[in-house]
């Protein structure tokens, strides 16, 4: 079961919880599961079926560049955090 850490500004959609343990094989599956447990979380994290550009996902300490397709292991830690701004966005 992967542990998902919920950032402070998303906890209002997660009943105030800072983490939750979920079963998932990929980040995409994990977000689906997260949304089932805390409805609305998928909209917080995703837009048009992809991770929002302002959000980054770290799996086991490493920011992933493949978003929803990133593999999640049984013992994985998954963090959602702000993407680094100041780059190519504008």
């Amino acid at each position, binding site marked *: 079961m992967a542990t998902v850490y919920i950032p402070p500004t998303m906890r209002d959609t997660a009943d105030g919880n800072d983490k939750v343990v979920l079963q998932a094989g990929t980040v995409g599956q994990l977000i689906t599961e997260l949304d089932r447990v805390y409805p609305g979380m998928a909209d917080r994290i995703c837009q048009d079926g992809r991770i929002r550009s302002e959000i980054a996902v770290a799996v086991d300490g*490493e920011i992933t560049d493949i978003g929803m397709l990133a593999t999640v292991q049984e013992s994985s830690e998954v963090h959602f955090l702000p993407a680094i701004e100041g780059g190519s966005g504008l």
Partner: protein
Amino acid sequence: MATTDYRVIGTRPIRHDGTDKVTGRAKYGGDTAASDLLYAKILRSPHAHAKILSIDTSKAAAHPGVRGVITGKDLPELGAGTIEVGETPSVNAMQMSTNVMARDKALYKGHAIAAVVATSVHIAEEALAEIEVQYEVLPHVMDVRESMADGAPTILEQQTTTSLGKDTGKKSNIATHTVFEIGDTSKGFADADLVFEREFTTSPTHQGYIEPQSAMVLWNTDDDITIWTSNQGPFGVRTNTALLLDVPLSSVKVIPMEIGGGFGGKIPVYLEPLAALLSKQSGHPVKMTLTRTEVLEATGPTPGSYMKAKIGVKNDGTIVAGEAYLAFAAGAFPGSAVGAGAMCMFTPYEIENIHIDAYDVLVNKPKVSAYRAPGAPQGAYAVESLIDEICASLNMDPVEFRMKNAAKQGTRQVTGVPLGNVGNVEMLEAVKNSDHYNAPLGGPNRGRGVASGFWFNAGMQSSATLQVNPDGTVGQVTGSVDIGGTRAATAMQAAEVLGLDAHDVKPVVADTNSIGYTAVTGGSRTAFATGWATYEAANDIVRQMKERAAKLWETDASDVEFDEGKFTRASNPEQEFTFKALAGRLMETGGPVVGKAEVTPPGVGAGFGHHIVDVEVDPETGKTDVVRYTAFQDVGKAIHPSYVEGQIQGGAVQGIGWALNEEYYYNDSGVMANSSFLDYRMPTSLDLPMIDTVLVEVPNPGHPYGARGVGEVPLVPGLAAISNAVNNAIGTRLSQLPMKPGNILEALGEIEG
């Protein structure tokens, strides 16, 4: 420490592009030429904030020699919100377009209003003067705190405050508010024996690249668009130009020119879409080059900031809580890197309880862009200054204090994400044992300061192809614009795999039609990620060459081994080919061999730096001289140590400028009053001592040769280290950058502000 022996990695060959660059033959953005070339100039807003009531271009269009005029109405309307663009993160295209050229409002002094193309630059400038613009001047706001206040002038009418995917719906100049938190700071501060708190401000500073933005664009009669530009990311230019012009991505080809500095500031597009439209109007290639004033007034500086930091410690020096409030001025559009600043500022330390509020705030200044570790130098300035104050109060050695609290592998950052393999502790050991740290100051009015800094570094996407030449050399093609010697650093990684000398690999930086997608040269990613790509492409060559040797030996490829540039038949070691010998027999064994790789590498190694600075402050003039500077950095494994040292020295120098002199000085009308290099005071070689560097090599296990990104970390610690040194010299802490002479005299009570 790195102990692996390599043939090429860690050596110092002359860079492949060195001869062209020192003899002036290398072609930069300004060196483009065409037989029927026209020249374009931009009319810019004289006001910091104004409604554009009307623009009359008729006289300019009729001016002899003028071949075209555009305003914001000539750019496509792209709809609100973000757009998914496939290759790069989704972007707010309409905001990007509006920054390139204003629509209904001018949002900062220097905002592009119209552009003219003519047969000469001078004629274009004459025609600009004939464009009549009616403005209604609006109240402007330049300071983040004033902009955050209720009743502040509204900069973007539809701007609301968002927070990680949630839109509050409240209209505000606060574009984002992000909270970071681990542990329980109320408990942490309650457990503290001492609590220190201070406010800090920093001014916007510019990346200060020597080469202004310059591009030449041809919109051909078949609607193919070719762009020659000096930008850090040709693929980003392709994407964003296609997006802003609403044309197919495939119709745009970007040919990267050599780049005369970027530091993050040459990632956005400013000129290319405008020059393209003017080329379409005129039917000619169009060249557009900014002046230094335009660069300063209208291209991204780094955000100015207002920060509050608070740290709680035990009497034994253990940090038990940290808190910060960051408000960064994004300019006229969102995106100040305040989040990155927040995520880096406490990272050198293992702290259980941290809370940070980070605000991205609009002001009537140019839209900021990245600048080496965007956001991190400001945050480090606040935290590292406060730590200096704590060390003095506790009478603790500042390096011992940092070692006591040092972050290491597994330490949770403020995001909760644990650090991977890092060399923070090893670096601090090197600092503690260094000659500089243990040397006397050597004179009156001198002070010493130290500070640490952190940056994530990046991976992203890179592509590479390598082709084997019959003489045993290898041609290398990547899409990474060369900054700081990245041709050499990536070619060396291919050479190491192939058992060749660095100069046997011939690197070329290709246009966007000639190589797979490659992300920007930025984020300290190129030697790491494009190096990964050349490493993988070289291994692809080895695999194919083994098959060729196997054909000649009438055996299976699994029977062929490759080591140190030599193919050997495992079942009969007397049979062997050197790489060069086998390269000469490719045509008879199946034709050319081309290796390729496309990578999105994991294993990015984060980086720490630590700087020691000695300054001497003249008590009569307030002028600060940096008399000794040593920069330590965990570089993983230095692929080419000279270029790693160069990156560190350059970053340190930019920190000196930021700390002591550089600032955007605005008058009451919101107009930058120092928009030239005469008045915007960057350090020159005459201002600087030798910047000594110490490369601490704790290999990154995520890279085949242990490399970490090195280009951004060296700008992070300098602001605080210099501030701490000045404080040590004059006995008074300034909490405002730059520490220019007037501010120092004011702090000393010699003058009134």
